[in-house]
């Protein structure tokens, strides 16, 4: 059972870490901020 509950902790951690990475891209220019080609 420890594997299940510690796995749940890691899954929750991964969700918010992924959220952070995703929000960093939210609203960012799609071409990476450079000149429009």
């Amino acid at each position, binding site marked *: *059972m*420890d594997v*299940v*509950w*510690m796995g*749940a*902790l*890691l899954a*929750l*951690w991964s*969700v*918010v*870490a992924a*959220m*952070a*990475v995703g*929000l*960093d891209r*939210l*609203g960012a220019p799609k071409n990476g901020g450079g000149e429009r080609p």
Partner: protein
Amino acid sequence: MTASAGSLLAFFLFALVLLAWPVGKFLAALCNERLPHWMQRIEAPLYKLAGTEPGKSMHWLAYALALLAFNGVGAIFLYLLQRLQGFLPLNPAAMGAVSPDSAFDSAVSFVSNTNWQGYGGESTMSYLTQMLGFTVQNFFSAATGIAVAFVLIRGFARRGDGKSKGLVGNFWADLTRITLWLLVPLSFVLALFFVGQGVIQNFDPYKTVHTVEATGSAQTLAMGPVASQEAIKMIGTNGGGFFNANSAHPYENPTALSNLLQMIAIFLIPAALCFAFGRVVGDRRQGWAVLAAMAAMFVAAVMVLMPAEQAGNPLLASLGVDQVSSALQSGGNMEGKEVRFGIDASALFAAITTAASCGAVNAMHDSFTPLGGIVPMVLMQLGEVVFGGVGSGLYGMLIFAMLAVFIAGLMIGRTPEYLGKKIEVREMKLISIAILVTPVLVLAGTAVAVMAGAGKAGIANPGAHGFSEILYALSSAANNNGSAFAGLSANTPFYNGLLGLAMWLGRFAVIVPVLAIAGSLAAKQRLPVTGGTLPTHGPLFVSLLIGTVLLVGLLNYVPALALGPVVEHLVLWK
């Protein structure tokens, strides 16, 4: 409201402002990273040991990932500590391993500053788990919340130019400084005061005593290092009691004076952070405006809660029970309240502990009248922004302030700006996420619990009150309060899993967008005040802010409240 209740509230607010002002001044220095030289010299070896450079400011994403890594490791450590406590020292009562689901729930609970307790402390946890696990997390979770508030304040204060463009500070330095220079000293002083009042602090085995009745039965008195946990429990708005009865237990809260200090300690840092905010952004009136909005909502809540409890129970009145206050009795609804504190101090404590995301209790909220019970529930559902948790209260309120200027901007047709920073599309998306996370967790979680067999199995009081108990539990967990309505048997794999999920996402899925907003603001140039700038320090803005909090925060929950406490109130007073 009686004269004694009014006097207690007035004295509490006066003492709070008096004590919060100097603390706010110090918090501003911490936020500005302007510490005296001697403090920096003491810190230096710690940074060297950790291999970090305190002067190296981070991008918001790096700050967020450092924060998440630190709290993730803390959760795993706390989980393992509970599972292995049977093999570890400082366990005179020979407590065995905590069950995996309960260990998960408690690990998330203390790391997220919620301190929801599905367990009874004196019957489950060893002294080592209480001290090295829960007390340590009380410090770190509080420091985490304050650090996030610092980052958001810096986002407003940064000029958005030069080398520091978009950088928000160093997480490791913030965490160290807040813990070392704010939380530890305050907790040390408060713990000594509590010991003076009679709070116990020992490593003794539990004592067996014989009661004074003629039949003379034996009773076990739990011991332990209580005062050291009690102080940070209040200062850090954690709320997790050493004992199951929390601050209703005479070893945790022995006197009327300790009760008053506990209440002031809960609001001290949230109020002080408002003053710090005003100082750091260079306009103290801004801090006063936020504090005024918080105080107005708090006073209104108390003015509903206290009379509701003083009014008593009409069903008892119809049976001829005397519930009128007199020299011989406190009157009103005394069920679930400590006679040492009475109705006023119990009702005020309930409002404070739920307005702040503390969750300590000195009375059983489940036994409040329906109207009295709805107030703590609503205070949590507003998003814990009425003073709120340490750090989380201020950053939550500043999110609402940005939403308020956005709404005002729509009404007058101007690009909204707050403290010289334009609030644009990216910020509004992030604000929406930050505000909507907790209502989704509360309402979806409640819906799942009332539909699932495992959820309904925990209800002790079927009907509207059972629904209120579940709604309260989810509101408490997702808003990181931690107080319980009691009556709900929540120490089951279903509730430990559901509430653990709500606590984790209610904490970190809000912190992440708040940090993203701070990073976005820090990169923006601060615009000068012009004739078209909406003033955000006057009564008009305070009213707008209160209206925004009430409309956005409360409207989400009106249908759910109607199914629970509102029905109970109408049934009781029909």
